[in-house]
């Protein structure tokens, strides 16, 4: 039997096709009923008649600190964002730390301070936690797990099955900054004005869109696999597709420089503080206006539309031609979050 069938490969964690197959075959097949069904970013659970959103995420980014954030701020933003894009208001966090023998205290303190600052900015409280230390070589500096609980914001009815031709695809800001910042930091690529992570909470963008909640059909934060992964998932098996327009895609210059140098397609690269939304055409302008009033929504724009090309995500290039935007395959960029 080939090795790929007998053991986990790095590509299983890359956010591409192999990750999806792993989750489908090993996780969903065992736990896929109930709140886990459909693999939402956050599960809807009910306790004593009250509906709550519940999510968890683990953070293994390397290096621990990168331009624009560190593993601590990322661990707060990632989980807060999973709640927010599920139409929730983040409330409580758990904090699980796995520390490697030899981790400098000053690094630990910077990470913890970043957690406090990010949680304060997101108006969430760390309610419970756990700390473990493992021997040198058994983890890489530190790993973090955070779980989050949030309140559903009334009015959002989200799901890819609600997409209709003509819907607008909105991005709240520049794309691919986090993945490129981490990769550049890791590779020691010093570019003047180089990529800076977009790690940030998106819950205020969601709150701002709540006034238009009825017209919002789909929200995600495009992390691993970038917007290519998220949009392909949204239209997979559906009668609708998506047309993106290259000329209007928002990219930060430093991020683009790094991506062009390394030959990476930014549509496949992770964001950690952006909101990708698909909405009815009637509310698109209104949502963009409210976003533009927020600092995190300054570069928000419409990047494309839903069309009737079933299941396909297509890019209209600046040359006026069209090409497929595929799901990234295999080991895209390991350990970026």
């Amino acid at each position, binding site marked *: 039997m080939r*090795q790929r069938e007998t053991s986990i490969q790095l590509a299983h964690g890359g956010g591409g096709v192999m990750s999806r197959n792993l989750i489908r075959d090993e996780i969903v097949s065992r736990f896929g009923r109930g709140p886990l069904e459909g693999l939402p970013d956050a599960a809807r659970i009910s306790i004593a008649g009250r509906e709550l959103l519940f999510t968890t995420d683990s953070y293994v980014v390397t290096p621990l600190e990168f331009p624009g954030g560190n593993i601590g701020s990322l661990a707060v933003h990632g989980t807060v964002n999973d709640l927010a894009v599920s139409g929730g208001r983040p409330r409580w966090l758990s904090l699980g730390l796995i520390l490697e023998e030899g981790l400098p205290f000053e690094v630990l303190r910077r990470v913890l301070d970043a957690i406090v600052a990010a949680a304060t900015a997101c108006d969430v409280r760390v309610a419970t936690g756990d700390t473990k230390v493992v021997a040198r070589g058994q983890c890489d500096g530190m790993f973090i797990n955070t779980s989050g609980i949030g309140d559903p914001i009334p009015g959002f009815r989200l799901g890819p099955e609600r997409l209709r031709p003509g819907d607008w695809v909105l991005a709240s800001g520049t794309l691919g900054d986090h993945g490129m910042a981490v990769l550049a930091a890791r590779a020691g690529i010093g570019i003047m004005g180089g990529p800076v992570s977009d790690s940030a909470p998106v819950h205020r963008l969601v709150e701002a869109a709540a006034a238009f909640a009825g017209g919002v059909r789909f929200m995600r934060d495009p992390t691993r696999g970038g917007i290519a992964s998220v949009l392909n998932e949204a239209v997979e098996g559906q009668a609708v597709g998506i047309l993106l327009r290259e000329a209007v895609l928002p990219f930060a210059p430093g991020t683009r420089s790094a991506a062009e140098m390394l030959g990476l397609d930014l549509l496949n690269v992770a964001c950690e503080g952006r909101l990708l939304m698909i909405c009815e055409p009637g509310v698109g302008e209104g949502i963009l206006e409210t976003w533009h009033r927020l600092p995190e929504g300054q570069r928000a724009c419409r990047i494309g539309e839903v069309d009737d090309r079933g299941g396909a995500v297509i890019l209209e*290039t600046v040359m006026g031609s069209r090409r497929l935007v595929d799901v990234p395959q295999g*080991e895209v960029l390991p350990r970026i979050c």
Partner: protein
Amino acid sequence: MKYVDSFRDPAIAAPLCDRLKTRGAALAARGGRARIMEVCGSHTMAVGRHGIRQLLPENVTLISGPGCPVCVTAPGYIDAAIALARRGVTIATFGDMLHVPGSEGTLGECRSGGASVEVCYSPRSARDLALARPDREVVFLAIGFETTIAPVVSLVDLALREHIGNLSLLTAFKLVPPALRAVLDDPEIQVDAFLCPAHVSAIIGPRTYEPFARDFRKPCVIAGFEPLDILFGLCAILDQMVEGRASVENLYERVVHEDGNPIARALMDRYLRPVAARWRGLGQLPDSGLMLRDEFVRYDAEKRFDVPVGPGRESPGCLCGEVIKGKRSPLECPLFAQRCTPTDPVGPCMVSSEGTCSAYYKYERRMRA
């Protein structure tokens, strides 16, 4: 980003596309067509990424050539690399090589099984690895064309100067001109002109292509990788064909100089000598590869560890060999997007980020549905 955007300016692309159409029509008026081989894998990817095939007139076809270094590497080479990894040697490699099928498995699978396989963005990382781990032997998988050969062979230069004893190369260097000759010598492959590789030309210089223009009457145009570069290059090729000319034109003067890069060639010449090389698809071609000269044999992993590189076994049913020669399009392969996908590739053209099948899969497979 000025140097990216100015080479993707739609306002300049439009007149170039018009010119392609009129030139295509002029050819068509006398029953002609143009089968243009884009030799280099980076051109293949750029054509896909920017949707350039759709901008061409109907009688102008782009055929992908043997210019993807991973794709032309024979399976026996992967077998040798796996054998080395299993012996406890650290393999340093560009990422694409991880998933190329050898006779029985891939290096990626070997790594999951516990072997030490490190992915490098630059050959220099192999030297850093060797310095960081003096207790281990580090072998760099030295594949590539002229563009890559010089920087990779500079590792030997570094190792000599820095007295690094635990670093060696498993070489499968390939040269582009002998492959083009093999393409032209094959009566089944009908190519009217070459869109010559950009960065390879920066090393070997435009004059190297002169025999192809003079003796075979094939227009040879060197163009860069940006969409306007490619459109401009295709226009130049069609101009030549319409006017019945065949010459070498260098349209990538910002990078490719008249005499190429003599310093890089001198470095290659100091350490390497020509050798017959085995190409996936094209078979054994005389003087189409380079290997370390005898005085540098201690840096030659094949000899140092006595792992002879054999032909290996190609996956049955896989048309990569035909695709590499430009005889078939990936869409004609029965395995394409069925049994052979980037996640579970059967042949190397689907693995490499410069592979023809990978480019078609990534950018065009559903455009035709």
